[in-house]
């Protein structure tokens, strides 16, 4: 018989205001096996934990039930406390009387009744608990960073500087990401390339960083500390070792009609290309879809002009398999497609552009060499209109429900830069709300208005009406004085909502990392574990977790690196002892369990057993506890009940069911 102690937490008033904790203590004390029950203000506090330790020792407790917040919050805390007091940590169960009770029920009597039942269920379970010993698994001292934008680069640099090997896998031909497409950055107006390029170079030169560009993660298996990852290195058609990056091939390439991804399709690139001048590695790739040689078999100009003989039309995709201890996701974002927002005439006029396109136009290396001009006729604009919240903050399926967070600031930046460089251009911003939380952010926005004379009008635009003369009539309303605005503009810039990179779904599935309804990766805890995925060993860096600006991204990238370093620094990981185990006397050896095991953790062996005097050789299931992750699929597939899950055994769950239905 167990000797169980029950500890009921008030959680200040979080629990005690709706649950009569004294009553819970009183009722719990009547349950079989319970020899001690008490309540306390904050059970998770040091004082609360020492109460528990004291009771364990004084009452020789063999099991604990803590009635408190969610086990996802403090199960570990209490298990560690029990361990320090000499009790096996797996003899502790939590009754969640906060998230599942006090916070959602209003009636005290009802909530108390439920709390008592939840306590009973936990007590019934602990009565059947057995001490479990965690195993150990090794840690591969290498990290994988998926995505080579500023988030991925920063994370990789921090991990590498701490002394660990890091691989970056980047889908495009160069690292750099979205930041490399930006012209200036708010709120200090630094040149984006000036601050990013050194980091790119540093990453490329770092002795502990390997960069796989033009590559994608293909398959992930394993678990925290011991992931095995297949990386597909797409055929570049250029030998990385031979290429000198002279650029002659790009110059001579006769196929120059492919819209440049880097310049957002505003101009064209050659079929053999590097996305931009500072690309790292400075080795071009052949876009086979647009290459004349690959499409027709005739051409081969690049191979002819290449002095280094680096062009290799025969190159094939290559799969590299690597082991990693930790994986950081830094897949970033893209802007949404605007075909559902054609009231803004994006597809009808070349002079309606997205903010990211404006970045390229403003950039000296961009399609207009940094001159602000209309893409339709190359004329400089006199009137510019910015429309905010295009596709953000939407309740319908056309857009995104969230605020994209960066648009208010970059719009102020654009407005300011234009007014600064072209003082004769009038700039009008249509906004719903201006959101500028951040250091020096509101000051920045106010400067745009007060110092640079940017005209902010409150009210979302209804329609952009292209005029026969090429002007754009912006139909809006000034909500503050109920006035219709019909503004004639030369260019309209849409602050287009951002969304997670569409590939992230596929990656999340491979990593079994959860994703929210907007395709942002979910963090383990919204406040306390913001850079970790709930899946152990997976960390989140940058916009893949939620909209962020550059400083926030860099901060989070560093935080993700620290978490990954914390993992890599460990020699061994303790493994979850809640794994499946087969009862050899009941096992039929039928293989049904192995058929459903996602980890290949079940094998079979012929072994002699002694079944109540009958000695015979039987085919028996054996669980590899290092591979088993404890899902329990096998336990239900097993018809004889031989397979059971430690910590969530059949009898334990049935005891909980019985206690709840009692």
């Amino acid at each position, binding site marked *: 018989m167990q000797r169980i102690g029950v500890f009921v937490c008030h959680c200040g008033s979080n629990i005690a205001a709706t649950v009569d904790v004294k009553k819970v203590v009183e009722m719990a004390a009547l349950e079989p096996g319970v020899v001690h029950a008490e309540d306390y203000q904050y059970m998770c506090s040091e004082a609360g934990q020492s109460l528990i330790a004291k009771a364990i020792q004084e009452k020789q407790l063999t099991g604990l039930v803590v009635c408190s917040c969610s*086990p996802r919050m403090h199960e570990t805390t209490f298990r560690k406390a029990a361990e320090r007091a000499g009790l096996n940590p797996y003899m502790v169960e939590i009754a969640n009387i906060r998230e599942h009770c006090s*916070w*959602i*029920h209003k009636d005290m009597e009802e909530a108390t*009744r439920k709390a008592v039942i939840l306590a009973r269920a936990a007590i019934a379970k602990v009565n059947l608990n057995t001490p479990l010993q965690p195993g150990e698994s090794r840690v591969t001292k290498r990290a994988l960073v998926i995505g080579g934008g500023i988030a991925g680069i920063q994370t990789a640099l921090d991990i590498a500087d701490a002394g660990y090997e890091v691989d970056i896998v980047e889908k495009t031909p160069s690292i750099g990401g979205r930041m490399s497409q930006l012209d200036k950055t708010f709120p200090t107006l630094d040149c984006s390339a000036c601050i990013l390029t050194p980091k790119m170079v540093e990453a490329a030169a770092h002795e502990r960083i390997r960069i796989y560009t033009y590559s994608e993660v293909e398959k992930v298996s394993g678990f925290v500390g011991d992931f095995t990852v297949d990386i597909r290195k797409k055929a570049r058609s250029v030998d990385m070792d031979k290429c000198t990056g002279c650029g002659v091939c790009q110059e001579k390439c006769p196929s120059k009609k492919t819209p440049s991804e880097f310049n957002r399709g505003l101009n064209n690139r050659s079929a053999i290309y590097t996305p931009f001048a500072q690309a790292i590695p400075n080795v071009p790739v052949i876009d086979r879809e647009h290459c004349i040689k690959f499409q027709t078999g005739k051409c081969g100009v690049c191979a002819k002009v290449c002095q280094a003989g680096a062009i290799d039309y025969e190159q094939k995709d290559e799969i590299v398999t690597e082991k990693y201890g930790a994986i950081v996701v830094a897949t970033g974002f893209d802007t949404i497609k605007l075909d559902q927002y054609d009231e803004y005439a994006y597809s009808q006029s070349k002079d309606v552009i997205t903010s990211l396109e404006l970045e390229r136009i403003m950039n000296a290396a961009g399609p207009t060499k940094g001159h602000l001009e209309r893409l339709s006729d190359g004329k400089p604009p006199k009137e510019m209109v910015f429309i905010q919240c295009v596709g953000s903050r939407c309740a319908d399926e056309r857009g995104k429900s969230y605020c994209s967070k960066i648009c208010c600031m970059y719009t102020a930046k654009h407005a300011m830069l234009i007014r600064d460089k072209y003082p004769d251009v009038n700039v009008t911003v249509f906004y719903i709300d201006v959101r500028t939380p951040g250091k020096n952010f509101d000051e920045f926005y106010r400067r745009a208005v007060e110092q640079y004379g940017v005209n902010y009008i409150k009210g979302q635009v209804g329609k952009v009406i292209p005029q026969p003369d090429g002007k754009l009539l912006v139909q809006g309303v000034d909500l503050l004085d109920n006035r219709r605005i019909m503004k004639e503009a030369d260019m309209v810039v849409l602050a287009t909502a951002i969304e997670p990179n569409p590939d992230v779904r596929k990656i999340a*599935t491979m990593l079994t990392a*959860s994703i929210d309804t907007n395709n942002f990766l979910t963090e383990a805890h919204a406040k306390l574990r913001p850079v970790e995925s709930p899946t152990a060993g997976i960390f989140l860096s940058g916009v893949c977790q939620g909209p962020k600006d550059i400083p926030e991204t860099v901060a989070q990238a560093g935080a993700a690196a620290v978490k990954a370093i914390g993992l890599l620094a460990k020699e061994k990981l303790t493994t979850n002892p809640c794994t499946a185990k087969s009862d050899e006397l009941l096992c039929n050896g039928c293989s049904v369990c192995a058929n459903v095991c996602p980890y290949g953790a079940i094998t079979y062996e012929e072994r002699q057993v002694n079944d109540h005097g009958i000695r015979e050789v039987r085919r028996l299931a054996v669980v590899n506890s290092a591979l088993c992750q404890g899902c329990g699929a096998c336990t239900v597939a097993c018809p004889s009940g031989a397979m059971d899950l430690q910590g969530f055994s059949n009898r334990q769950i049935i005891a909980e069911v019985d206690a709840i*239905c009692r």
Partner: protein
Amino acid sequence: MPMKDEFKPKIVAFCCNWCSYAGADLAGSSRLTYPADVKIIRVPCSCRVNPMFILRAFEKGADGVILCGCHPGDCHYSTGNYYARRRMTLLFSMLDYLGVENGRTRVEWVSAAEGVKFSQTMNEFVEKIHSLGKNVRLEDLRCRKE
């Protein structure tokens, strides 16, 4: 005024640790209410739920049993919920075949981010059980307290 003989259904909710239990936690921290009749049992994955558990609950007097897990494709263990989906579909079909109202059992996929969905689902389910009334068909009568 005290309500006489007010039906207080017993409802067991099995929630997978990674998505639905976290979704229930989120419902809690967002203060999204649902009736206290629902009691949650934490399991590692929806595929841990044995039909035996569900029948046992009914045997012991439960009026409804709901199983919540990660959305298909999002299982923490990759594939657990796919097995659970087949198992529960067949089990529910069998219960229906035996004349048990099929509203008493339900499977819902609730992610860690879907606190709202969790609370909505529970509210709907409790309402459904109210409309079906006390479960007398499956119960082991000895378990009933009179």
